[in-house]
């Protein structure tokens, strides 16, 4: 009964949040753009979850794990399908520069900060192995930025920069998924339950994740090729694929995001014409899946995050403010400054929504209080940077004909 209630609430809110009226609301002003985005879903999730009014219990949230696996598999495939080798070859040099800059600053600045604070918070008692997965999560979540650019309302001359923001953010998401997926497999639990390094296990687990993703990609390609044209057939095969890819990874103890993303890469690079329909299907439900992820993040938030958690969140917000805005200028070094809108660089402050999916993936495999606090930290960083970008970036004027959908 509770599980039905949880699923019913999640799906209803997802539908309401993605209805056409919400798009109209989004266009009406800068604050409402945030309010009508995914963040209210986090607030609603928190309110109905165990840390809020407890309408949905911890046990019920656990029971909705298959729904989360499906959502994470969906996100992973969406990321992986973008990575076509043929397209990568055509990427401008500025994308490599912005990615290189971001990766370097995140590993050095955010990595050091996260390492020190996590060590002080939990590592002193439990050892380095215990903080490896949380560290990779925080680093992965810090990578990239929000790829949503439509609501920025930039002038027509800014298309190339907006494309750079989207491409850089998209590729950074994939790197983040890989970092967190690998980080999660670097440690394991011993027979006594302690977290420890185990090289043999890690190598085998990672090899299996890659191998399984490869096989899944080939199988998926085969099945997609044999799918009929009716909507019902496509629905059965596509949902089946997403559930199978996400479920198989979860069963092996791997991140559904990583395996799905790797399978997506394989599908994208060996598939023929039929893949377009699959891609369209995946993108069609993007908003609904996003809202489900936001809602689940809200439900998993914890009130016991404490000063360490708040400290990490505050440090990361400040670091994003320092490190992210120069990325755009670094990527465009040497290019003539033809009166570009300088305030656009502040939009890089906004945390990538993939960060929430990454945090949920960790909390899904191990539903511990600590992992829920990590989800809370990621949510705080996301919300804070969203608001900060709102006030620092230029107040936009929506372009004519814009429907407000996220890119």
């Amino acid at each position: 009964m509770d599980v039905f209630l949880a699923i019913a609430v999640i799906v209803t809110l997802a539908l309401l949040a993605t209805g056409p009226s919400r798009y109209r609301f989004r266009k009406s002003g800068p604050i409402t753009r945030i309010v009508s985005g995914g963040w209210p879903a986090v607030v609603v999730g928190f309110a109905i979850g165990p840390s809020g009014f407890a309408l949905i219990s911890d046990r019920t949230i656990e029971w909705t794990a298959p729904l989360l696996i499906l959502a994470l598999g969906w996100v992973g495939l969406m990321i992986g399908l973008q990575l076509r080798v043929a397209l990568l070859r055509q990427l401008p040099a500025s994308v490599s520069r912005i990615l290189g800059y971001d990766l370097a600053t995140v590993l050095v600045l955010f990595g050091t900060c996260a390492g020190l604070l996590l060590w002080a918070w939990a590592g002193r008692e439990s050892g380095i192995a215990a903080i490896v997965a949380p560290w990779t999560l925080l680093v992965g979540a810090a990578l990239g930025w929000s790829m949503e650019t439509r609501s920025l309302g930039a002038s027509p001359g800014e298309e190339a920069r907006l494309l750079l923001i989207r491409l850089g953010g998209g590729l950074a998401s994939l790197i983040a998924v890989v970092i967190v997926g690998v980080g999660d497999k670097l440690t394991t639990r011993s027979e006594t339950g302690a977290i420890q390094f185990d090289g043999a296990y890690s190598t085998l687990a990672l090899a299996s994740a890659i191998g399984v993703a490869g096989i899944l990609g080939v199988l998926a390609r085969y099945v997609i090729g044999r799918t009929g044209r009716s909507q019902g057939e496509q629905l059965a095969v596509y949902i089946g694929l997403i559930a199978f890819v996400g479920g198989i990874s979860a069963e092996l103890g791997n991140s559904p995001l990583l395996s799905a993303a790797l399978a997506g890469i394989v599908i994208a690079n060996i598939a023929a014409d039929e893949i377009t329909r699959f891609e369209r299907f995946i993108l069609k439900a993007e908003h609904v899946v996003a809202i489900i992820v936001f809602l689940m993040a809200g439900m998993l938030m914890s009130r016991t995050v404490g000063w360490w958690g708040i400290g990490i969140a505050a440090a990361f917000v400040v670091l994003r403010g320092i490190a992210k805005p120069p990325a755009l200028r670094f990527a465009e070094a040497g290019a003539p400054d033809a009166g570009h809108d300088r305030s656009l660089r502040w939009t890089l402050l906004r945390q990538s929504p993939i960060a929430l999916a990454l945090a949920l993936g960790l909390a899904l495999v191990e539903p511990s209080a600590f992992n829920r606090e990590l989800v809370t930290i990621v949510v705080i960083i996301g919300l804070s940077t969203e608001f900060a970008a709102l006030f620092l970036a230029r107040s936009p004027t929506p372009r004519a004909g814009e429907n407000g959908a996220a890119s």
Partner: protein
Amino acid sequence: MIVRVLRLSFAIGALVGFAWIVRFWGSQLRSGAERGAASSGEVPLSDPTGRVFEPLPPGLLDTGAGVGLLLLAGYLAGRLCSRLKLAAVTGYLLLGVLVGPQVLGIIRAEEIGYLTLVNDLAISLIALTAGGEIRLSFLRESWKQVSTIAIVEAGGVLAGCLVLAPLVLSGAGIISDPWTAPSLAIAALVAVIAVANSPAIVVAVINELNARGTVSKLALAVTVCKDLLLVVVFTVTLALAATAVLGADESAGASAVVKDIAVHLGGSLVAGLVVGVVLAYSTRAFRQHLVFFVVFACFAIALGSEALHLEPLIVAIVAGMLMENLFGEVTEELFESIEELSLPVYCVFFGVAGTKLDLVSLADVWPWALVFVAGRAALVWATTTGACLLVETPRSCKQWLWSGFIPQAGIAVALATIVNEQFENEDFAEPLFGFILAIIAVHQLVGPVVFRLGLVLSKDDEPEARTQSGGETQADESRPQVE
């Protein structure tokens, strides 16, 4: 043809084989404490700050792969069966048997509980479809045929099985003396369950063939009417049987039974009307994500019915009938979305049903189960053909309508479960439950094949049959074919 069959078989084999390897290799790959904690809960797991937490229940994380396998391999198995001129439903069921706990064990017993969440979604969806297929214009024209066939067939099967069941149950060693009052009461329950049909299988096979002729329309209408009737008959029979077997003290009183029926049936009808109106008026608001809206609506019907102790099947059938007949234009897109969802839902629903097929019970009592199945089939044939002779029906109905009343599935299992719960402390309860499940298993596997054959031989799936049966609407033409 042979190449295509081989290709499909290979693809199913590859998917199932891959899932099997991952399932058994995967459990080895998980770390020691994960395995220990998941299996026994003996190893306490703590997070980096030292706080202990409970891991997810065993089987929960594996559910995603199970659903994926039932969808992907089920879809291919359905296509394979279609190529072999069998019902696609048979493919889903057989795949469920193959991957279920009794054969390969890819889907384990503890996972089935999580997968049955899909059942509630599926039952509402199937019932909405069934309701949407029943047009008032058709009922107005054919109410004499529908009511006569329903009453004669249900009455005939009930009467015949009342004689057959004591003999078979006695032969199978479930009851000792077949002609005592308690034995007859138990036999009466088996006979009532034998009347039950499966709207799910009927709708699935009709959709698969896109059959819209008289045989399919009558089969569906009679099945739905019989199910409404069955709720009343079963409740009364169960109360009488409880009095005969357990004594008056432990059974419910007559007034309670009447009240129960009134609330159950009347409440479900009223709720169905309300749900139908609400869905019809909400369709436009959720047009952008109608498929998700349908999923939500089906969950809401299941959730609401459970909370109000109503029958979700009746609620959804009434809602579907109301929407089709009063809000046809508004809900056309909604029914299209329901039809889009049908195939994936059938794959999982019938796949899960396959995983639950009790092969052990069947192996124990199969000779007596087969005697009962054969007897019931003869009764269904004789009573349906007789009823068709009594009222004016096309020749195809006289020859093949009976095939629609062979399949049994969810409703029969639900009734058997209620009987098992009512008599759980009695010695005969467990073998009786096993025997009924064995019969349902046979009907579940054979039923779709027979009904498909009936529809094909009666040419109900051909375009001429639709025009001959009349009542074809624009919505019929626009609805996409499932298979």
